[in-house]
């Protein structure tokens, strides 16, 4: 049957095969930065933040 094997040309656009859209690249870098900041802010050994501490704080604020 004609369709039992494929050629790679069907799958990969030639001219744009190395393109990375700028908006996406910005998103990619943005979420990496966010992840790093979030990790630092919410890791007890680094920032001192803890789940139980945050809970007790919330009781005082009521």
């Amino acid at each position, binding site marked *: 049957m004609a369709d039992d094997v494929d050629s790679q040309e069907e799958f990969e*656009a030639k001219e*744009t*095969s190395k*393109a990375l859209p700028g908006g*996406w690249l910005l998103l990619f870098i943005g979420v990496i930065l966010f*992840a790093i900041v979030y990790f630092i802010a919410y890791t007890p050994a680094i920032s001192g933040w803890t789940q139980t501490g945050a809970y007790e704080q919330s009781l005082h604020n009521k």
Partner: protein
Amino acid sequence: MSVYKMGDYHYDNQTVRKFIYSSIFWGVLALIAGVWISILFWAPGLNGPGWLTYGRLRSFHVNVMAFGLVLGALIGIFYYITIRLTKRPLLFPKIARFTVYLFNLAIAVGGWGLLMGYTKSLAYNEFEWPASLLIVILWVLMAVVILGTIIKRKEEQMYISLWYIIATVVTLAVIYVVNNLVVPAGLFKSYPVFAGVNGANVEWWYGHNAVGSELTMATLALFYYFLPKSTGLPIYSHRLSIIAFWSLIFAYLWAGAHHLVYTPIPDWIQTVAIAMSIFLIAPSWGSVVNGFYTVREDWGRMRTHYLTKFFILGITFYGIQTVQGPTQALRVVSSLIHYTDWVVGHVHMGAMGWDALVITGAIYYIIPKIYDTEIYSEKIANTHFWLVLTGQIIYSITMWIAGIQEGAMQKAVNPDGTLKYTWDQIVAKDIPYWQFRTLGGVIFVAGMLFFVYNILMTVRKGNALVASKA
């Protein structure tokens, strides 16, 4: 050019077909169970005795859907794609054929067990150990066939779909085996070796990545293969595909603990999982952007090539899903929507909007190709499309609203600190939403029945064609 005879492919194509038919069979049973349990939510009086109780039918629905419909279709379609991208028949065709029978046996044993009340009680892994053991054997054999075929391939370059297939095969093997480390206590009962906090952590490492490999990576393998095939447009950027692939693989395995926010799991593990979840937006959207840019070459194909809309709407829901998911992982959002129907909405937009559209689109492509004919009716395929789209949107939106309402009522407190609402009061408010959910489900299942009919008629046409040629 090819050194292989037509007959070699014919045998493998039959294996692919058998997997697809099996998966449709289990899928129809699981869909009916799903609609029925959705009715039990607002008409609990209909609960039957024994296997007709909600608890048993619910686990039957979930596990037979995930392992019967989705896994069955995926194995068959993996075989189909692997043959074509490696330019050779499967390495061990007889073993591949054997996996069809093993697959059906495993689902029959596991599904029957759930109806009889035998369950491991691990989410998304409820089949008791005999069925799980069969699934492990099935998976190893399938891995040998697929990885062997890829190693012995006749095309040097490996297209992105093959990378996603390899990732799925390896990931699911590792997580399934680890989450099935149990001590059997008789034929119908077993106890997991992990308990307490460790058990929870392993369970959601498994649960998250079972979704991640079956419903994400595997479905992306299909998406990257069938989008160019059914539109005639090559994928926009190979580099984008590859970067998105490796960053997805890097991050996924860390994210499981986002299912366990505000639990006794150590704070730092939750934090890592949440940070990784946020990061996942980028690799996920890499595929979304790649899909859109591909079809941007000619949006007219949404009209002229009927399968285009299955894949483009599919990747759109995947895009929404992968913004919603990371948001849910954030502590403040999790505390509102966890333990509510919101999550059920999230699940079903993924399952009914992304996975179902891509998998049925792929089957529409494959079955006529194997028979060297056209689909029985494009019109019926379009009806199917609009019905499942409508059904899914009704389902997702009603569950999001119900979920926010439940979350808000659970959190409401009186001035003296006591809870404002009882569980009963919260549930009573859900009834109209649950009725709408059933409506959405019925519309969705009606669409799926059009699909099944269309496939059956195409097969009939194909068989007649084969007979006339012989």
